[in-house]
């Protein structure tokens, strides 16, 4: 299913070979060479972080924060325990790339985390894995065993002074735990409720200790960058948008799946790789960066290239790289109703605007979808949305509002039709 095109994370992975995830296969395709290089050639922490900066790798978890910069924030000389955490709590509707990484190439992630641990002077790491993909958690645990047995993980790695312990931790069904501080709370055994920032995890993270958190794909890109050099990674993509990126394409395409392609690839090309629109239908709209990203209509989307800057310019965001493709049969009211329900259902409930506002948004959209809409509802939605956005503890509040804003910006007429005629303009979902 996963389609490897030209990439970093899935370099050399054979998706048809059930053993391709294993450590032997990984080593055969150049795995753990980066780690060996660091430990055997005495590459310094500074040099690694410089390489990460040079790569222009931006965090693949959604916010796109430059990874090298984040690593440089870690107080490396902090004397107490520090933690490295990987975010595999992939649960943003549309995103399923981290699942494929863990299942098909777990050692790339493990090696990336070990390198991260070395670069930031951290000796303990955790990988928080989405609850619903429990089999991926088991795969990860199995890969950890392999890495320990091979001497890449644990005490005195490869006979050096460097030790690093890595553990898997699974979620059990809460999207909010993808938010990094909710993830930390959850990792501490509590409800996954985001923390107010500041303080940021770099100073007050897991168990109150300095912590760096990155996405799975971010870590899995690290071995390549160290092995091949930051510059080479950067050149795979375009300036400020270094490297290749995994795009999880879902919805009305012929071949949904993960496509690892250079940042900056035109959307039209990506659509072609996916075999085009299912059933030859017409493209109506695309949510380009996971369900939180504002929807873009077909004409705008077809002009975009798949990178942070182009999508942002078009008024949406690349997010985690989940591309939800909708054809002409899609009812936008129904689509929004489902998304709004998701944010209402997943709101952690601690902060007022999100707890109360997501339910309000959902109930109004639900009414409209069910023929109970009122003329003033669309302005009400925007007003309630404005009262949520930017006022919450974490970005879930904004995430709940952006789909509403996007839909009403580009498809307002469809909503008005629903209110007036109490039926859909489109027959499909």
């Amino acid at each position, binding site marked *: 299913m996963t389609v490897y095109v030209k990439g970093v994370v899935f370099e050399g992975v054979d998706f048809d070979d059930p053993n391709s995830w294993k450590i032997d296969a990984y080593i055969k395709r150049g795995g753990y060479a980066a780690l060996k290089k660091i430990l055997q050639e005495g590459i310094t922490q500074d040099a690694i972080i410089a390489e990460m900066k040079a790569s222009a790798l931006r965090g693949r978890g959604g916010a796109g924060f430059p990874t090298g910069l984040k690593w440089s924030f870690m107080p490396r000389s902090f004397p107490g325990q520090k933690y490295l955490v990987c975010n595999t709590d992939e649960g943003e509707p549309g995103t399923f790339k981290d699942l494929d990484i863990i299942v098909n190439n777990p050692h790339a992630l493990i090696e990336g985390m070990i390198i991260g641990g070395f670069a930031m002077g951290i000796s303990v790491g955790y990988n928080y894995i989405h609850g619903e993909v429990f089999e991926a958690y088991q795969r990860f645990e199995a890969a950890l065993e392999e890495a320990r047995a091979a001497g890449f993980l644990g005490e005195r790695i490869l006979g050096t002074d460097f030790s690093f312990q890595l553990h898997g931790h699974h979620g059990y069904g809460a999207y909010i735990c993808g938010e990094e501080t909710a993830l930390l709370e959850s990792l501490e055994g509590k409800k996954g409720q985001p923390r107010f920032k500041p303080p940021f995890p770099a100073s007050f993270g897991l168990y109150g200790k300095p912590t760096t958190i990155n996405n799975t794909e971010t870590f899995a890109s690290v071995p390549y960058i160290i092995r091949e050099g930051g510059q080479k990674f950067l050149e795979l993509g375009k300036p400020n948008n270094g490297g290749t990126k995994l795009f999880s394409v879902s919805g009305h395409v012929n071949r949904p799946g993960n496509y690892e392609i250079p940042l900056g690839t035109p959307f039209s090309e990506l659509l072609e790789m996916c075999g085009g629109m299912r059933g030859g239908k017409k493209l109506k709209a695309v949510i380009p960066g996971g369900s939180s990203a504002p929807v873009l209509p077909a004409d705008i989307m077809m002009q975009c290239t798949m990178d942070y800057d182009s999508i942002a310019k078009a008024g949406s965001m690349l997010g985690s790289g989940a591309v939800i493709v909708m054809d002409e049969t899609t009812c936008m009211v129904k689509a929004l109703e489902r998304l709004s329900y998701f944010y209402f259902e*997943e709101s952690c409930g601690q902060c*007022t605007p999100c707890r109360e*506002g997501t*339910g309000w948004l959902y109930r109004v959209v639900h009414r409209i979808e069910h023929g109970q809409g009122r003329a003033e509802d669309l302005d009400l939605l925007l007003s309630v949305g404005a009262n949520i956005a930017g006022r919450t503890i974490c970005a879930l509040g904004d995430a709940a509002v952006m789909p509403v804003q996007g839909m009403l910006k580009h498809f307002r007429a469809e909503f008005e039709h629903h209110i007036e005629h109490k039926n859909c303009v489109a027959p499909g979902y």
Partner: protein
Amino acid sequence: MLEIEIDGKKLTVPGGSTVMDAAHSVGVHIPHFCYHKKLSIAANCRMCLVQVEKAPKPLPACATPVTDGMKVHTHSDMAVTAQKGVMEFLLINHPLDCPICDQGGECQLQDLAVGYGGSASRYEEEKRVVPNKNLGPLISTDMTRCIHCSRCVRFTEEIAGYQELGMPGRGEHTEVMTFIGKTVDSEISGNVIDLCPVGALTSKPFRYSARAWELSRRKSVSPHDGLGANLVVQVKDHRVKRVLPLENEAINECWIADRDRFSYEALNSEERLTKPLIKQGGVWQEADWQSALEYVVHGLKDIIANHGADSIAAVATEQATLEELYLLKQLFAGLGSQNVETRLRAADFGLKTQGATWLGQSIVDFVGSDAVLVVGSTLRKEQPLIAQRLRQAVKKGAKLAIVNSHGDDLLTTLAGELIVRPDQLVEGVLAVIKAVTEARGVAAPAHIDLAGVEVTDAARAVAAVFEGKDKTSIALGNLAQQNPRYAELHAAAAALAELVGAKLGVFAAAANSVGAQLAGATGAGNVFAQPKKAYVLLNTEVEFDTANGAEALAAVQQADMVVALGSFGSCALEHADVILPVSPFSETSGTFVNVEGKPQSFNGVVRPLGETRPAWKVFRVLGNLLGLENFGFNSSEEVRDLVLAGDVAAKLSNAAVAPVAVKAQAASGVVRLGEVPIYQLDMLTRRAPALQATADALAASQLKANAATLAKLGLAHGGNAQVKQGAGVATLAVALDAGLADDVVRVAANLPATRALGALTAAIEVTQA
């Protein structure tokens, strides 16, 4: 220091301050719900959103750290729009039932909604309904009103020390609750009522009994433990309706214990006396004050004439005021008797100190110690708020250790814990002394004999808490003070304090324990051991307020005359000859001197019930009737000023007059660990129905022992046992208490079920029942 600007006002604040702190410091009010200065920052209500220049979004003042040069606008368009938006969200699911809500008139949501709420709701969906929870006899719930600020949850976890309340569920289904079927049992639980900004958590005893605006608020001081918590007593129609904390950072901060909050129910009890009573021919007759007082004067004079002045004695509890105790003592002095005593729960009167025993320093200094050793105390129940403050101190890095006769969970981290039999507390402290002498290569003073003392690892751990610490303290709790070897225990603790450079303190068991000493109302010792011909009992129920209820009751029963001054009839009705109804703390002016030696005077908050009179006035009249000199006081203040003339601090001292020799003793056999249950402390707590319905009260009459002892005695958890001390017998339910030493049987005192038993720390016979 950082320079910032709030609403155009320039100010400097220390680094690490939040915008909320800074605003408070210049008197700028920022609306808020979840923020509370004593709790961790949650930043969840979002009511405190303010505009910070250069920030693209409004920021929560409670959680945003101040940075140099920051410019904050709390009432700009951006800020007010954000605040109004939050208020709308808070109200969409909040019932509009202010007219029937107990919080009405003192509701922070209601207050702010007036300023920030819209006039009509734009929310037309169905409102949320949340089922109520049973949190126990003290706290009433109306959970639909909850605004999820999480203050109550944070309180139980952070201040009370154990997360009794949680917020299970997610999103809008989140509900504040206990774990299924559990009640909130903390001894300071009532504070969540004050913390709740809306009417979700309210006082169960107070429920629906008055509206906030009908109540007048009067200051007072708690009459229970020695902390002297400051109170606001709320009154309607000359009845106390409710008691709330009066903030005093140096004493109770903004908290009070449940005892302080709910004991007022007793003030309105049916058992209150309203007229003097005289027993004639075995029948109680109402009398006027004049006749009753003359009866007392004649009776006392007669007995003195026939049996001498030493044949009369007066006892009072340490909940009596400084003025009352002084006048009682003067009255007896005038009659030629020195037999006045307030240390009714003591078993050893051998200790003579150079002044009134006290904490040895201020409360703030005490809890600011780097290391604290508490000896012999059921700390959470004896001193609920000191326990709370020590819990906060431990969080900030202080080391806490105990030498105790039980291992009750203090809901904090102990750095050392030495559990011994109650009759071996002295040996426990000796073991710590010996550990110190070994670790430091120093010698103990000559009067401390360490021969035969065994140093255990536990003793070493306790000794180690003082290591490398500057400000250290040792405090003796109620169990220590009630110990039959208190003088030795005190001497050992003092020697240890000397060795490690700690300050020695004595926890005051009651509101006026220190004041009683300053008033000179101590010194007689046990006046029940050798029965007297006449007793004057001030606020004392002999079987409930003494160390050996059986002995005290026997003494009183054989006396020729018993004069009971109190607010309630009950016990005294059986053995007294005259009962004089005197005011509880709420109906008289007076002074309590708290554990840190601070005199706190208060006025009556309601007028005395019926013909009740303040006891100080009763003593004044008695003095006059007896023709005694120096009884011409016009006010209680005059009495106080006389007693406290000069430097009060100079009258406080924990130093013994002469060294008491301490020597280890062996102990064997089954020994009773007797202690006063939290809600049996005094006449008021005993009569507060809600307190008597708490889990603490219900569990008080259990017999407890560790597994080995239970097995040895043939008892089982959940079964029954019969205990016997002298002629006293009681049948009690049995419970396992793993925190006890072997052969220790924990049987509380001063309970209806156990009042017939003997001494608190003594041999006890236990059999299966």
